[in-house]
């Protein structure tokens, strides 16, 4: 098999894995906040977290450039301090995948947390367990199926991220060409056999992750 194909497959897995780890780490606390807490600006936070789900990826990518580009609001500070910019690196692909797939984790996990019986949470409090302890020992285990489903969906979405990634990480062969981007290039230059392979691989992998997500959402306790 062509080295470039292998590179794209490996890069896609690497990007989606790191993005998914970040998504789980930030998505769970955010979902918990949205499911269990009343605070000012909660609806706004919910809308902000959900927007990447409905915005065209180019718009999300545009915002990310405005924020993280070398002259961006955050990107400039990072560049001044470190001389490094995330633009056109594989980390940019991780960032794009993270932002675009995060809403799937938050939505699924929030629904799962909200479905945990309030009495079980109250029982835990009256038995002397702190809120954090209760979240860890009662809420998370009972919301587990939703969390697994959200993680699988996010991974599949992160693997398939194209638009925002292209804007942020560019299409640099051997550096930032994840599978979706490589397929775009191969189709453009008429290299069908490699494109076929990657299309089939993407379809199979995405199908498997969707299947996992479905299996776990069917029986959220």
């Amino acid at each position, binding site marked *: 098999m062509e080295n470039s194909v292998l590179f794209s497959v490996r890069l896609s897995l690497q990007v989606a894995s790191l993005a998914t780890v970040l998504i789980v780490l930030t998505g769970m606390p955010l979902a918990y906040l949205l499911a269990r807490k009343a605070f000012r600006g909660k609806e706004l936070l919910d809308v902000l977290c959900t927007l990447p789900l409905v915005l065209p990826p180019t718009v999300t990518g545009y915002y990310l450039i405005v924020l993280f580009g070398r002259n961006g609001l955050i990107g400039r500070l990072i560049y001044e301090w470190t001389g490094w910019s995330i633009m056109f690196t594989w980390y940019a692909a991780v960032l794009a995948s993270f932002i675009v797939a995060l809403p799937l984790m938050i939505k699924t996990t929030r629904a799962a947390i909200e479905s945990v019986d309030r*009495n079980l949470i*109250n*029982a*835990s*409090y*009256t*038995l*002397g*367990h702190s809120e954090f302890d209760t979240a860890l020992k009662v809420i998370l285990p009972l919301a587990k199926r939703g969390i697994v489903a959200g993680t699988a969906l996010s991974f599949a979405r992160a693997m398939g991220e194209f638009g925002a990634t292209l804007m942020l990480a560019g299409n640099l062969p051997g550096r930032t060409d994840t599978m979706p981007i490589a397929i775009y290039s191969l189709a453009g230059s008429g290299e069908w056999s490699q494109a076929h392979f990657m299309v089939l691989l993407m379809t199979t992998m995405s199908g498997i992750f969707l299947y996992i997500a479905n299996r776990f959402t069917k029986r959220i306790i």
Partner: protein
Amino acid sequence: MGLQVRLQKKVNGFALDIEWQIGNELAVLFGFSGAGKSMTLQLIAGLMKADKGQVRLDDIVYFDSSAGIDLPPQERPFGYVFQDLALFPHMTILQNILYGAPNHSTNEKLDRAQEMIHAFKLTGLEDRYPYEISGGQKQRVAFARALIRRPKALLLDEPFSALDHPLRLEMRRFLRALRESFNIPALLVTHDFEEAVAISDKIIVYRHGNIAQIDSPERIKRSPANRYVSQLISSDEGVPVERSS
């Protein structure tokens, strides 16, 4: 001594305004559904915050709106048994009971859990899950879990409502014996007058978030304070719902 409660709380057009005290006895909060009985338990346990009032048990104040005292439920010494029992479905019977003693060493926890399992006749069920045991056994697990941390009072929110009649009778006897052996105040919510009479030393009758009468079961039967109470105690068993007025 005992449990002294004075509470006011307005929520969604419903106003609770009650004051009572109970000693080292089994008291029943009796009234129609929606009269504020379960809400009272939640306010006492700190699961809900009262607008005004005080919750005091044996000279220790757990809530006092004017003094700004409001201890979280974790720091209130109440054993709470919920209407649906709220056993953790992902934990075994032993794990459920152990969960009630979070602040003890593993050895002490296990010793106490063994004591509870023995006292509540749950031997052999330690590794089962709640869905694998009978209704009566679930009740006993809920009591064991609430009592393992040695609470200073028991709050029981209609724990027997899902049981059939013979089991209910058995659980009433069990509860009376239990309260006597632990020797702490126990407060039971029920809308079943027969149950209230059969089990309690004192009945606190609720009406629309207020107290209609507080007395011994015999005296409430003999001389209801007003027409409302006499109607209430003669109404058929079932789940009567208080009309909002």
